């Protein structure tokens, strides 16, 4: 094929190029050399034994106890001496003071020699999560390996168990992935699969089978792309990989299955001949699957019969979100451990530096860095939940710095990428219920930025951006529902900007994964559209944003194969051009 760009290419190569003046060049060189000295790693500044000596000197400088700590020790010692002088009338007071002083001295000794004494790295005290009854009312039993067991609160459930509620029986099951199911009377529910990946803890799969009756399901924080929550009834499957609330009912007598969605969206599928008939059901809608396998859509109506069940569960949903949020906050505080303002914080940092120093394997060293980064984020999260935004800045900065360092390493190591994915997914799960007006939102945003930085290719970056934008759309919806209009609009605008930028980026060769993510985002935007339908005062403005977003998502650039010679197609052109091998 004749190249008709020759003249153009020649003109481009001949373009006048910007020149950096020699003065600016020299100034920058000088600046750079000065700054380079500060950023040279210790291993390079101080080789071998010299390095160890210098490191110890550096550590000794850090181990200097803070003035507050020193003053507190002095006070206790003086108080003890004074009491001794006054006599033994205050025996119990003395004993306590003595213990206090002794403890203070011990801590002081330990912190001063911390490069030889390691603090036990107290792991996060999270109990292994399990699936169990959160609540029981009336007649509820569990069928396990053919035997019937009376259900009790907090009783663990295993794969294969069938939960049976009687006439006045109600049960609430909390799964290890933080989802819940609430069973109505006369329900039989089987625990088909309760799976958690060993390496990537956020990769969970809960599959339950509704054999008869009615169950309300609330999924609050699935974050991993391969995590899912699925309820099957006969051949019908209702599945979600995100936040959602949905109600499923089935009556043995009439073989009709009904799936009604009350938050976000759920994918319902029915096998049809050799393929699967899938439909995304968004909130406010339900589907009924009748005996011949066909799906009929209808709008959920709060009939008299359903009203109480739906209203109660909606209220329970709200309550449960708050419970989970609070739990995650507490877990985060425990995980954070000693905080920056505490006297022992420097000792904690020394312990971390020592760990890094003694770890020689490159991948293991990077994993330690990931652990340290997560610790910083947990500290920031704990400080934010106490309202200390200022205090949280330092650990957030540290977190960003470490992420920056690791970003150069992930490309070359799949093991490290998996480790990062797992560690970050756990934190995302913890923060997933936090809304933009919540205290810990800064930590959530820091984690999103980190995800973006760690994405290797432009396509991955765009996927991450889209996912984060989708989450913001869901957050905006929740804020609208809580009547926090202003906050909701700001969040929605941020999401829309992100979506429009990503979707119009023709630098990206769109692959199937990106297209799928775009579809997900589009469905979520449509859920939001439904949610603001009746909000007349903000409808127009919000509608404009939603329309722009929908338009961007509905016109993606065509998927192209990754080949050396390729057919170039754009959506408003006919396929015609073929690039030859080696043609540039």
């Amino acid at each position, binding site marked *: 094929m004749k190249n008709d760009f020759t003249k*153009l290419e020649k003109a481009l190569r001949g373009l006048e190029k910007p020149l950096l003046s020699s003065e600016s060049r020299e100034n920058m060189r000088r600046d750079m050399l000065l700054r380079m000295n500060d*950023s040279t790693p210790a291993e390079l500044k101080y080789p071998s034994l010299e390095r160890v000596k210098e490191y110890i000197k550096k550590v000794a400088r850090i181990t200097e106890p803070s003035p507050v700590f020193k003053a507190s020790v002095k006070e206790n010692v003086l108080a003890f001496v004074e009491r001794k002088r006054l006599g033994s009338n205050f025996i119990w007071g003395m004993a306590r003071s003595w213990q206090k002083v002794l403890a203070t001295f011990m801590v002081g000794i330990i912190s001063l020699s911390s490069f030889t004494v390691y603090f036990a790295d107290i792991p996060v005290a999270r109990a292994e999560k399990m699936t169990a009854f959160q609540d029981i009312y009336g007649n509820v039993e569990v069928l396990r390996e053919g035997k019937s067991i009376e259900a009790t609160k907090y009783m663990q459930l295993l794969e294969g168990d069938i939960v049976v509620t009687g006439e006045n029986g109600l049960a609430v099951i909390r799964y290890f992935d933080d989802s819940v199911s609430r069973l109505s009377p006369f329900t039989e529910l089987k625990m088909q699969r309760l799976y958690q990946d060993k390496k990537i803890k956020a990769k969970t799969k809960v599959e339950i089978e509704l054999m008869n009756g009615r169950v309300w399901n609330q999924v609050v924080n699935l974050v991993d792309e391969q995590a899912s929550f699925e309820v099957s009834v006969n051949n019908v499957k209702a599945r979600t990989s995100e936040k959602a609330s949905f109600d499923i009912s089935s009556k043995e007598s009439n073989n009709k299955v009904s799936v009604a969605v009350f938050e976000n969206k759920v994918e319902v599928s029915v096998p049809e001949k050799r393929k699967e008939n899938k439909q995304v059901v968004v909130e406010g809608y339900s589907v009924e699957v009748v005996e011949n396998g066909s799906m009929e859509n209808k709008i959920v109506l709060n009939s008299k019969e359903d009203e109480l069940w739906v209203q109660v569960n909606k209220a329970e949903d709200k309550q449960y979100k708050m419970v989970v949020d609070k739990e995650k906050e507490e877990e985060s505080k425990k995980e954070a451990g000693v905080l920056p303002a505490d006297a022992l914080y420097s000792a904690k940092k020394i312990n971390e530096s020592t760990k890094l120093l003694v770890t020689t394997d490159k991948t293991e060293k990077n994993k330690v860095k990931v652990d340290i980064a997560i610790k910083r984020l947990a500290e920031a999260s704990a400080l934010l939940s106490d309202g200390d935004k200022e205090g949280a800045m330092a650990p957030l900065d540290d977190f960003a710095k470490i992420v920056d360092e690791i970003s150069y390493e992930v490309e070359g190591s799949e093991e490290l990428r998996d480790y990062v994915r797992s560690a970050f997914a756990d934190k995302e799960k913890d923060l997933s219920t936090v809304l933009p007006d919540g205290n810990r939102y800064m930590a959530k945003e820091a984690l999103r930025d980190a995800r973006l930085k760690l994405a290797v290719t432009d396509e991955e970056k765009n996927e991450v951006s889209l996912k984060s934008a989708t989450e913001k759309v869901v957050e905006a919806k929740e804020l609208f529902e809580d009547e926090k209009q202003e906050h909701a609009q700001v969040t929605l605008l941020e999401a829309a900007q992100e979506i429009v930028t990503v979707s119009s980026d023709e630098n990206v060769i769109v692959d199937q994964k990106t297209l799928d993510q775009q579809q997900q985002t589009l469905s979520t935007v449509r859920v939001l559209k439904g949610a603001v339908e009746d909000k007349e005062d903000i409808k127009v403005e919000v509608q404009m944003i939603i329309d722009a977003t929908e338009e961007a998502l509905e016109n993606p650039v065509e998927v192209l194969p990754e080949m050396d010679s390729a057919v170039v197609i754009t959506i408003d052109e006919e396929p015609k051009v073929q*690039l030859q091998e080696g043609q540039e």
Partner: protein
Amino acid sequence: MELSEKEIEALVLKSQKGDQEAFAQIYDVYITPIYRYIFYKVSDHDVEDLTEVLFLKAWENIRKYKKRKNTTFKSWIFRIAHNLVVDHYRLNREHSSLDPWISDTKKEADPVRLTQDSLDNERLKFAISKLKRGYQQILILKFINDLSNTEISNVLKKSEGSVRILQFRALKALKSELTDMGINTYE
């Protein structure tokens, strides 16, 4: 300053052992191409700052560089530049890198005044400024910074086939812009 690839790799090895003078020589080699790359991507007042940050990042991470079959140090350092610019956009919500191009207030740059159909620098720059960011990028890397397709594929983390596709699209879009301006781009 021009050095062969072998000489550059030798300087990189020295820098990886902490030799700041060796790194300063690397700076001398790449300052101009990197400056040019960043110049066309961000606004005037950010160019020098970002260029300096880029070299500091390169210094901090130089031990992570490994010579591989299709990777050169050049594509490695441009990759850092690319990521830095992307982060800069996201942090500053800077959607347009057009300012350096169209801030020229010379009369000749005013498209309304363009009466000739010749392909000169100003017209070309103006036409490029009208393109989408991704197209500008591929043209800058290829024709201003003289990177090969292999190097560009390493910078942008795409296959060489994709790079050729993007380049083709970019040239086609540029040609279309110039045609709209009444400029002949054929021999």
